[in-house]
């Protein structure tokens, strides 16, 4: 293969999937790896779940018998794995565009400015985010302050700031219940959870786990619309003629892949699900391009993503050896 490439493999995202892929490649003899990460640290979403005394452990280590850990500890473990290698991790670096044919990635950071790097293969492990209000289609109404996504809540938690005393959570998956437990543990009242479905998305055994911290009331609806109310700050939601009171709203769960760069590079992506088109080897619509982790859609824990990254790395190894 062409030796003028900057790296053997570029990985976009230093979350569990990206690190899983990097470690597998590294241990299999691929030493020339660059990971591009837009956050200021390794670990992805788990790194935002802060370790606190009396706090809630929301990540599971199934490989170690299924015990709960703090996200931050999971992220530290990933960081430790990388620190024992000479894999290059570019932190605080935002990918601006990709060239699928040339297998190049353009990114920017404050140290190097705008940079172009090339490789033999690229793995997109850029994770997912929560669907915004418009994307949920049944949410509408006012646009007051103190309506936040779970990630924003976690970001504020880094500064020990509890933004809501009487929370209402829209969405009912594990992320929602984890947010409820987190808010309660930090001093808020038991949250109200409302969702546009009859039963919570979060499985019963997980709900029982979170009962240790909070017992949120769940209100399920089958409604065409749910309206956010509040002039200055959020005061509640209206749904099917009912009003629920609050002093802040958390919009939770309903993950949607961060696949924009695939679109920018004209790789095939399903719209509106935003799930990139892949084959059985996690290869994208252009050869040499792969995906791993939550960018593939669905709702997966950190450990699943880590192992999925390893699986994708196997495909990349096959691809590289075939091309040689």
């Amino acid at each position, binding site marked *: 293969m062409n030796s003028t490439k900057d790296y053997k493999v570029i990985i976009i995202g230093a979350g569990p999937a990206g690190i899983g892929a990097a470690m597998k490649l590294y241990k299999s003899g691929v030493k020339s790896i660059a990971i591009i990460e837009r956050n200021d640290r390794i670990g992805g979403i788990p790194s935002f779940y802060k370790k606190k005394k009396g706090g809630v452990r929301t990540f599971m280590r199934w490989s170690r018998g299924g015990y709960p850990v703090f996200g931050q500890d999971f992220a530290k473990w990933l960081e430790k794995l990388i620190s024992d290698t000479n894999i290059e991790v570019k932190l605080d670096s935002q990918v601006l565009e990709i060239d699928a044919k040339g297998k190049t990635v353009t990114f920017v950071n404050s140290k190097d400015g705008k940079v172009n790097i090339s490789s033999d293969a690229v793995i997109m492990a850029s994770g997912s985010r929560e669907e*915004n209000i418009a*994307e949920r289609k049944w949410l509408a109404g*006012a646009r007051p*302050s*103190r309506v936040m996504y779970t990630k924003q809540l976690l970001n504020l938690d880094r500064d*020990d700031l*509890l*933004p809501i005393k009487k929370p209402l959570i829209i969405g009912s998956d594990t992320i929602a219940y984890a947010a409820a437990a987190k808010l309660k543990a930090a001093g808020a009242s038991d949250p109200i959870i409302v969702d546009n479905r009859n039963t919570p998305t979060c499985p019963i055994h997980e709900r029982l786990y979170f009962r240790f911290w909070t017992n949120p009331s769940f209100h399920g609806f089958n409604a065409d619309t749910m309206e956010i109310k509040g002039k200055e700050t959020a005061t509640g939601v209206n749904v099917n003629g009912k009003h629920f009171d609050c002093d802040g709203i958390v919009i939770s769960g309903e993950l949607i892949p961060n696949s924009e760069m695939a679109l920018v590079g004209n790789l095939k992506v399903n719209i509106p699900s935003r799930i990139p088109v892949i084959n059985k080897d996690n290869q994208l619509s252009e050869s040499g391009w792969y995906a791993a982790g939550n960018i593939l859609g669905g709702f997966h824990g950190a450990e699943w993503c880590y192992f999925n990254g390893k699986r994708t790395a196997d495909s990349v190894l096959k691809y590289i050896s075939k091309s040689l």
Partner: protein
Amino acid sequence: MSKYGKLLYNSLNDNYDESLKFKDVAQLDDTPYDVAIVGAGIVGSALAYKLSKYKLKVLLIEKNYDVGEGTSKGSSAIIHTGFDAPVDTLESELVTKAALEWPELAEKLKVPFKNCEAIVIAIDEEQEKQLDKVYDKGIKNGVIDIQKLSADEVKKLEPNVSEKVRGGVLVPRESLADPFSSSTAFSEIALQNGTDIILGVEVTDVENKSEEIKSLVTACGKKIKTKRIVNVAGLGSEKFAKIYGGENFDTNPRRGQFLIFDKHSGFEISRIFLPIPTAKTKGVLVSPTIFGNLLAGPTAEDYPHSFEAISETTTEQLQLLKEGASKLYPKLNEQPVINIFAGVRSNCTQGSYWIRCNDNSPGILTVAGVRSTGFTSSPALAQYLIGKLHDELGLNLEENPDAIDSRPENKWPGWWKRRYDNKELVKENPDNGKVVCYCEQITKGDVIRHLDSPLKPRTLDSIKRRTRAQMGRCQGFDCMVNIAKIISDHCEIPLKEISKRGPGTEISSNLTSNN
């Protein structure tokens, strides 16, 4: 060089810069203002900009905590040519005139502007019959560069238009622009030329309205002396006119909901798609935006003035809107929606551009009914109002040779001209390479530059409108708190006091978490 005007904000939290707080009228000098402009929307800001080139003492006062925060922020962001305006009206005259002024003006203001053309599209036999009328009206309005198109010609220009297209009218000068940075640019230049700007202050009374020197009484109890008052308060103009006893008129807010679609999702239209207008509304259009997204809207929903939820979106209307818009561009249904919003047109029952000089009191100018065309018409309307101030309200206009009419090159928004494309600029200021808003690729440098800009914006929404940070597909999921932290660090305001749009909208209640 002119002396900067004063910039004051009402009731800011303790930690804000002392120099920005409006504590006492003594902060303003004692001479009465020649003109006090009430309302800093696009019209008030444009008026301040145009007045600032004269030797005058001018005040721009606004109840919100930013300029352009009311009606002006929720528009389709199109600079119209006026081809479909009611013929022989002031509205038509001003829109047509302003459309010619905008390309050069945008260059001076350093606000993005893109001439993308529009096509009025007929999709059934009934509409096809209307095309001649649309064309004739355009010609009568002086928009002589419009052209009739056959169905094939429309398809050739826009291959993704509805298969049902029966013909169209091409309007070459219809353009895209950015209403947010336009209000800001007008006000910044006015401030620089000496106009005083007070934000977050509602005017609640006018004392001595029949005298030469009147007093504006503010909600915070302060009295400001002025010789003339211009009421350009948009949706608030009716309430304000009642305060000073102007001639009765009724504003009937007309809500317009919009859908914003993501960029990078392969939409394939390059011109504005306009439906055949009806007597009531221009109808639902589909348009690229200058920001690279796709927009569909607006709805036209009339409500009484007392309707509280006027700026709220509704699922039902948005669904109807999508169905309507996809008649022009069927592939719209495959596009991902990333944002919904409701704008409010300030319509006036007594007529559009309903303007009253010396409105039951000498020295008071009332401007109502500046509806959806207000963004386009603003520079021409401002000039027209200056004419009225001179002719009917006795304003003496002497040009100030030191006044500026443009902003420097570095005012181009970061999303329009990316600073990190130039390695030197990143070396000079590393923040220019630190992306904080991933979706719109806005840097920390962009945010800080705007915090330091003349109007000293301090709220999340004012930073959003200036930089586009938080306007992308994730709607602030990743960046909202990080931007709040930049504001907090740079301006030395505690994080919990950072607000969405001023006091009362802080992002956090006062509790500090203990775990």
